[in-house]
């Protein structure tokens, strides 16, 4: 809650002239005036302590009476008008704020609390937290409680807390947004719709989890293919860098048993069975017993072919990752769109007080 607004718009032409005169003034007295000071000024010698409390109380009572006149007038205009007059509300808030401070200083807690309620109700109306009709009715009740408490105080000399307690009960019953209500009323149709949406949201969780798992598997496959690629690359580079007379005594034969094994493992693990590879596998199984009728592959051919196959495995795994990512992304987007819908629906629920008709 902020301080009640006040500002330049309230300054009359005379007020503005006073401000300008003050701003234009350059010289002030440095010594205290010889003569008697202005009416607002007095010193300790002029003041006696007798009856000060009575004086202060009398001033306070007079102040409250004046404040009540202002409040009644503001209420009368608010009740009469079709629209809420913000100037009237501001006047009410300011008077209530002032009274809250002075009643607190005078140690009248019930008056201070009622004044605080008036200020909060006026602010709730001004900020449209409560409707004008409900708000003005609440203000009427609050001002009535203030008058009753004040009259009791003047008559009996003691503050009666009952009007304040009754006002608090009334305000709680209205749940005017002055405090957050414990319960709110919502349309059953909207609630049913919201529950349906949340059920659907729960159902959407399974596809998201499945898509996530598929993507994890695809990533593992890619990882395996990359490892295989690196392993083959090392092996092949070693073979290539070795002098041919030591590692490959028979150039007409396809390859070493080690290389054959490596490629075969690669083919099996990656399940790549295209015709060319199948032929290659068969040849590898029996390299020495059935010399090829075709032109024998050189080591260079074999090296290129092996690298191409490993690369094909990588491409396949990468493509699989891409596909599963697209699927996961689409499923997740659908899920998130549904989350947004649910959130919007929740925000659209009208938080009307539980006990309002």
């Amino acid at each position, binding site marked *: *809650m902020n*301080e*009640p*607004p*006040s*500002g*330049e718009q*309230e*300054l009359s032409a005379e*007020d503005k002239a*006073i*401000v300008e*005169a*003050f*701003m234009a*003034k*350059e010289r*002030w*007295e*440095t*010594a*205290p*005036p010889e*003569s008697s*000071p*202005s009416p*607002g*000024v*007095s*010193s*300790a*010698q*002029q*003041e006696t*302590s007798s009856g*000060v409390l009575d*004086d*202060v109380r009398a*001033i*306070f009572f*007079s*102040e409250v009476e004046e404040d009540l006149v202002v409040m009644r007038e503001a209420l009368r205009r608010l009740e009469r008008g079709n629209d809420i007059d913000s100037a009237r509300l501001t006047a009410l808030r*300011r008077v209530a*704020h*002032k*009274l*809250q*401070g*002075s009643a*607190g*200083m*005078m*140690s009248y807690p019930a008056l*201070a609390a009622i004044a605080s309620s008036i200020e909060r109700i006026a602010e709730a109306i001004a900020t449209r937290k409560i409707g004008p009709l409900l708000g003005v009715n609440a203000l009427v009740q609050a001002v009535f409680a203030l008058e009753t408490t004040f009259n009791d105080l003047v008559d009996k000399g003691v503050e009666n807390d009952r009007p304040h307690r009754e006002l608090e009960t009334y305000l709680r019953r209205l749940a005017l947004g002055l405090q957050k209500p414990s319960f709110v009323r919502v349309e059953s149709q909207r609630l049913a719709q919201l529950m349906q949406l949340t059920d659907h949201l729960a159902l959407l969780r399974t596809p998201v989890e499945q898509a996530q798992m598929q993507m994890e598997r695809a990533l593992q496959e890619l990882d395996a293919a990359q490892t295989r690629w690196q392993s083959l690359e090392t092996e092949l580079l070693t073979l290539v860098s070795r002098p041919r007379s030591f590692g490959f005594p028979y150039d007409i034969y396809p390859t070493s048993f080690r290389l054959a094994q490596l490629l075969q493992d690669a083919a099996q693990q990656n399940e790549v069975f295209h015709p060319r590879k199948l032929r290659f596998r068969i040849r590898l199984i029996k390299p020495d017993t059935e010399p090829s009728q075709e032109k024998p592959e050189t080591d260079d051919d074999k090296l290129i072919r092996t690298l191409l196959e490993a690369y094909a495995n990588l491409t396949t795994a990468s493509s699989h990752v891409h596909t599963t990512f697209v699927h996961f992304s689409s499923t997740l987007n659908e899920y998130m769109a549904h989350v947004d819908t649910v959130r919007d629906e929740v925000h659209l629920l009208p938080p009307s007080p539980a006990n309002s008709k």
Partner: protein
Amino acid sequence: MSSKLIMVIDDSPAIRKIVETCLRREGFTVASFADGIEAMQFLTSPQARVPDLVVLDIGLPKMDGYEVARCLKTKPQFNNTVIIMLSRREGLIDRLKGRLAGAKEYITKPFKTQEFIQIIESYLGVPMLI
């Protein structure tokens, strides 16, 4: 030695009376006003002198306490004038706004007059009663 002058600006007559009374009892000279315009009108009068301290309510009509403080502090003659804000609110923002407007202290209502006097005297010293 002249008595220290304190200006009290508050729209509540009861609070003005309470503050005036306790300050005068301590020996200060007090000038009190219902709003900032009244205070400025007094300050433009020929016999006016610069107050040593201003007790300034924030929720004032016409101009709020921050605006009044800013107006006073634009004048170099008021550089040494201590401004003490009075408010019912105890918010950090209000305190900060008060500081930015030139206030030295911020007192929340309701306050105990003894504590109030202690704060005033921490700035102006204890007056010598004649």
